[in-house]
């Protein structure tokens, strides 16, 4: 039995953070129904990367919303709202990321919904929480990264702020949302009452930085220094930690015994026998290492380093990764199929239960694709 089998989730949430949480719940066995406005549907359907579409909806939408159903309803239409409320009465969980005030206007706040369904788990995602001067700002990933201090941790100091090249605030917030919703299910199991779960993109991206923030709070407010050497990978770690160019590509070196590394690479590190210099002089040390590593191919170094137990890895691109036998052997990809038979290859859920991979062939639904079935099952008396 999949762990969340039997649970009914109504997803009013749009874009990435909320729907990525809905996808995790769906893969773990919950039935997730997207409540979408008729015809156009969720805004993300038209948001494409590289103009890639699967059907009327973008590949991006399909990636985030596979394994879900769609119920089209206009929340501003009183008849539709009656239907949605009937559905809410049967649901275990509902999620939304509307800006403050929207659910008040529609009449679907947590309090409103408790009156229909006293055991509902009501999940809300905001950009910055409910209070304060930022509460009404757009909750957008790059803006949140920029405000949170995250952009000073990657790259080298002369590059200025370097954002993470993925929607990391959205994705971490989606993960925290799943944790909050699951914890709420445990709370409900004890109290029998509905539960309100709230997360924000800002708090989630701060949580990712808990180490860096704790260091800042306890070192007298000193800012992190990434150093100014190409390939810097962590502002708080000593040499050799970082990425280095080889004669034919790049390799990564994690933490390890610098003097052993020096002997493998045949470079003179006799000035750095005191471990304390590995942090303080890391720029100088990394320059010495870089000069030597670039003289030979990645495979040559990797073999030599692994033999001595040094932690290292070749830097791959998606092509290299896709050709690794483990991608297939570990079933790291799966194919989903929509109602018209169109197929798309994508990734799968990362958690295994009882040695079973949680896979699913169900693609994202068309807008309102499941209205009839849902009306038949839940809304007819």
């Amino acid at each position, binding site marked *: 039995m999949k762990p969340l089998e039997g649970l009914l989730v109504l997803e009013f949430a749009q874009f990435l953070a909320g729907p990525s949480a809905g996808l995790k719940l769906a893969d773990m066995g919950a039935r997730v129904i997207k409540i979408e406005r008729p015809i156009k549907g969720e805004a993300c359907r038209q948001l494409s990367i590289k103009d*890639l579409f699967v059907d009327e909806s973008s590949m991006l939408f399909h990636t985030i919303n596979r394994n879900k159903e769609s119920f089209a309803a206009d929340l501003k239409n009183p008849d539709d709202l009656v239907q949605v409320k009937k559905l809410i009465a049967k649901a275990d969980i509902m999620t939304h990321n509307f800006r403050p005030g929207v659910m008040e206007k529609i009449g679907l706040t947590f309090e409103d919904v408790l009156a229909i369904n006293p055991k509902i788990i009501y999940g809300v995602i905001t950009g910055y929480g409910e209070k304060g001067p930022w509460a009404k700002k757009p909750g957008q990933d790059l803006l949140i990264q920029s405000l949170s201090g995250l952009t000073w941790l990657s790259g080298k100091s002369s590059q200025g702020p370097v954002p993470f090249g993925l929607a990391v605030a959205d994705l971490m917030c989606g993960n*925290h949302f799943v944790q909050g919703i699951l914890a709420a299910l445990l709370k409900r199991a004890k109290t029998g009452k509905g539960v309100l779960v709230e997360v924000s993109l800002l708090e989630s991206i701060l949580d990712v930085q808990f180490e860096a923030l704790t260091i800042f709070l306890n070192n007298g407010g000193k800012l992190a220094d990434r150093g100014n050497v190409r390939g810097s990978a962590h502002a708080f770690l000593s040499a050799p930690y970082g990425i280095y160019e080889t004669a034919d590509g790049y390799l990564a070196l994690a933490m390890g015994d610098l003097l052993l590394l020096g002997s493998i690479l045949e470079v003179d590190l006799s000035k750095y026998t005191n471990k304390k210099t590995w942090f303080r002089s890391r720029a100088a040390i990394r320059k010495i290492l870089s000069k030597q590593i670039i003289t030979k191919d990645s495979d040559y170094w990797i073999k030599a380093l692994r033999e001595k137990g040094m932690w290292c890895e070749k830097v791959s691109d998606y092509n290299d990764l896709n050709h690794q036998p483990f991608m297939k052997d570990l079933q790291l990809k799966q194919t989903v199929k929509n109602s018209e038979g169109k197929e798309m290859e994508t990734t799968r859920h990362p958690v*295994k239960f009882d040695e079973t991979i949680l896979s699913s062939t169900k693609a994202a639904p068309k807008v309102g694709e499941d209205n009839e079935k849902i009306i038949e099952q839940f809304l007819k008396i």
Partner: protein
Amino acid sequence: MKPLEDYLIVDFSQFLSGPSASLRLADLGARVIKIEKPGTGDICRTLYTSDLIMNGESSIFHTINRNKESFAADFKNTEDLKTIKKLLIKADVVMHNFRPDVMKRIGLSYDDVKAINPKVVYAEISGYGNHPDLKDKPGQDLLLQSMTALTWLTGNQNDGPVAMGLSIVDMLAGAHLAQGILAALYRKTINDSGALVQVSMLESAIDFQFETITTFFNDGGELPVRTKSNNAHAYLGAPYGIYKTNDGFLALAMGSVPVLANLLKCDALLQFPENKFTLRDKIKKVLATHLKTQTTTHWLSVLEPADIWCAKVLNYQELFEEEGFKVLNYIQKVTMGDGYGYETTRCPIKIDGELFISEKGSPKLGEHNQKILNELINT
């Protein structure tokens, strides 16, 4: 009431990924007991970063292990192993991140623990799961970032691979493990069964890139291309990026180019009537030159009223001065058993309006042996 009150978690894991998951569960109300090797303990205690040592141990350890108890025991010692097993009988959750086979050798595999505690949720975190090509590889964050090609998304086109500057894969795997444990505990309330929950850093790193990897799978295998300058996302068009201003930096997430040309009074932008993806390098270059001419405050005062998505770029010192940060009450003070206090962050989740804060700092190695013996083992 905290949602995980009354749950007991016995955690053998070390470093970041596993302990970050048990920190979340501790904040949500569970009692978390770290089992640590006498003498040395969690290796993270001595994993020094940034030369910052707090009360004799690494800042990282204190960040990840607050709100937990420590029980020092050596499972290679028969007596200690017996004691540990008595504790495991009472555990709702057992977690570890040893390499495959270590727990089997000790006699604490899932099957072993299930034999003494049939409804246990047994959770493991590994670097790569179980694959012959990967079994000897260390599960380390930067190596996973490199192997899964994450390094080609951050930075500009000519920067070479750029790592995300914190242990993002550890954090993701920890977040996924916590989800798996919570889902298994939920199922236990329904059907009264235990579970084996497994996560690897490899699967978590791929899940993190689900949008970009799916794009790669379906667009004929084209690799992501970062913009030449001001890159913030390899797959998004201009203006998406961070730009230098007269006195700082400005993040710009969207906006049609003609509208921006008008608002910013930038005539050079008018040559781009359409926001074409293929022209993004050129558009960014023009924008970058123009935005340098005025202060961040000036640009915000023009863009924000027009609903253009933008923000200033802050560092921690500046962030801490902002009202928008202060209202979150995101910093909490914790105190260790010996009175040493330090400040750190709190749990990011709010349930029924309750912030999950806890005054309990990280434990000294073996600090709670006697207490745990009295309360859970010799009873």
